[in-house]
């Protein structure tokens, strides 16, 4: 009875609403499109900028296209150690991701499944860590690393990157592993499997979705990290991409087109990955935020 009644009501209500709403809808769509422009146009502008000659940049023609594309800006930029920085970033980020996943999934498994007294305490420690700003550890870490003689090596980046990625990783993995049914392990134990075997053969394979989330979060955070790299690294050949881009741009202050080209090149790896995996990345980062 209810459904038929509402159906009648809806029929009556719809025409009036639709008229009013189409106007509101037009405004809403206009507003949302303006936002697309404000969020994306600066990046597009940078790309166009990077293809202009210095004269074109300096003459106030900010939305005109370049007369001819100055690809030479890009060759000037590529001379600036770009590939070296890219490789360094790849190395540092992938080692960090591997360590984070391995170490945090081990710890998360212990916290979520083992029967022991201090599980909650350990979890609390990691939770507190999420509130601690990384830059507060910058100075003491620098002194510590100097004494250990690992300042200005990739280890001085990877260690803090791993440590600061752990809390959120453990939090996400712990939340997931809690929900795995206990029967799976019980039957494995009956079959005589060791804990390590259960972890590797059963738990890790079913935990692929949260591990992917952790991968995405760690990748975005570490790939983009600038200040630790700029503080702990001084050799040209060890710089990561953000640091490299920043030092190139700060030194090269007159060739505007080349600066633009270098910034585009610096953004390119992440943008390519984003084009391929946009939904996964947005979901992963929101999941990271919401669960954190």
């Amino acid at each position: 009875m209810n459904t038929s009644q509402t159906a009648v009501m809806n029929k009556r209500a719809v025409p009036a609403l639709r008229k009013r709403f189409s106007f509101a809808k037009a405004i809403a769509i206009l507003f949302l499109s303006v936002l697309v422009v404000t969020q994306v146009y600066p990046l597009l502008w940078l790309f166009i900028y990077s293809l202009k000659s210095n004269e074109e940049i300096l003459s106030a023609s900010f939305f005109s296209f370049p007369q001819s594309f100055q690809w030479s800006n890009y060759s000037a930029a590529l001379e600036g150690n770009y590939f070296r920085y890219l490789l360094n970033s790849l190395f540092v980020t992938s080692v960090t991701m591997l360590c984070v996943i391995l170490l945090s999934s081990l710890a998360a498994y212990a916290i979520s499944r083992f029967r022991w007294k201090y599980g909650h305490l350990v979890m609390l420690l990691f939770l507190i860590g999420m509130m601690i700003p990384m830059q507060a550890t910058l100075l003491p870490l620098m002194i510590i690393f100097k004494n250990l003689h690992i300042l200005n090596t990739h280890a001085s980046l990877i260690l803090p990157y791993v440590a600061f990625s752990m809390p959120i990783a453990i939090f996400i993995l712990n939340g997931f592993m809690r929900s795995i049914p206990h029967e799976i392990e019980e039957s494995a134990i009956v079959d005589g499997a060791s804990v390590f075997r259960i972890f590797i053969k059963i738990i890790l394979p079913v935990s692929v979705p949260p591990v992917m989330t952790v991968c995405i979060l760690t990748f975005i955070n570490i790939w983009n990290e600038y200040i630790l790299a700029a503080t702990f690294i001084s050799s040209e050949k060890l710089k990561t991409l953000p640091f490299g881009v920043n030092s190139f741009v700060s030194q090269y202050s007159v060739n505007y087109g080349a600066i633009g080209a270098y910034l585009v090149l610096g953004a390119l790896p992440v943008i390519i990955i984003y084009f391929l995996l946009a939904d996964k990345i947005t979901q992963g980062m929101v999941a990271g935020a919401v669960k954190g």
Partner: protein
Amino acid sequence: MNVLKVSRLTIAAFVLPCLLIYISIVFVPILVSLYSGLLDWNGIGEATFVGLDNFRNLLFHDPLFWPSVRRTLMFAVFSMFEIPVALFVAILLRRYIRKPNFLVSSYFLPVILSVVIIGQLWKTIYNPGSMGGMLNQLLTAVGLESWTRVWLSDPSVAMYSLYFVALWQYLGYHTLIQFTGIMNIPAEVYEAAKIDGAEAFSADRYITFPMIIPIFKISIVLSFIGSLQAFDMIMVMTGGGPAHATDVISTLMYNMSFLSMKYGYGSSIAAFLVIVCLIATLLINMIFNKSEKRYT
């Protein structure tokens, strides 16, 4: 709940590698910096123990400290004002857009880029028109020449130029968080409300707002903590200058320790920052726990 009974050795093998790295990289440095906050030390030579002198100077005698605290808080306030805007955008997206993926991904694009790219991009945009800066050229082109500024070198506007970049970068992030929150509200709830005559903005008033509070809280915490930590972007764009006009707590700490070589003093600022972060998180949680109880 946890069923697996395992030996201590196994527990250690699972937890210790992670825990040891974590404690020695996160907690030990914090303790070290609490201690070095009590020293008069340039980081290399002899250190003298001066007790709470650094903290006393910091809180009562440093002309740079309170202004940088104020800027940090302003940062937090501005980014909290952004969240209702993000919620509004998210509501519009849910109501009017059938396939929001393209819009959402475009809004999110600035979020995934490094602060270096964002910072340098906006530095280029803020450049004087004669150096190719888009903003000033745009203002000149529409006849607002008197509005043109050297956005990052003029102490009266430099800080606002920085706030703006941070808001610009994270709008997409907060929008997406709110949007995900709204999409997780079951459609039946809205349908039921429709039957009761609640549609459009009254549905938002009685359904979306109360049900989104936990997500709203997350956004607030994230933006508050994020602002307290706002650091890299300022280092890239102004380094705290001109003449400390854009210093926030963390850039002040960095400049004191690495440029002025007052390592002990810098550590006391770091300690202050950690304490403020922890207290702020607790406070926000307490406030929201109360309001959640009121609404649910």
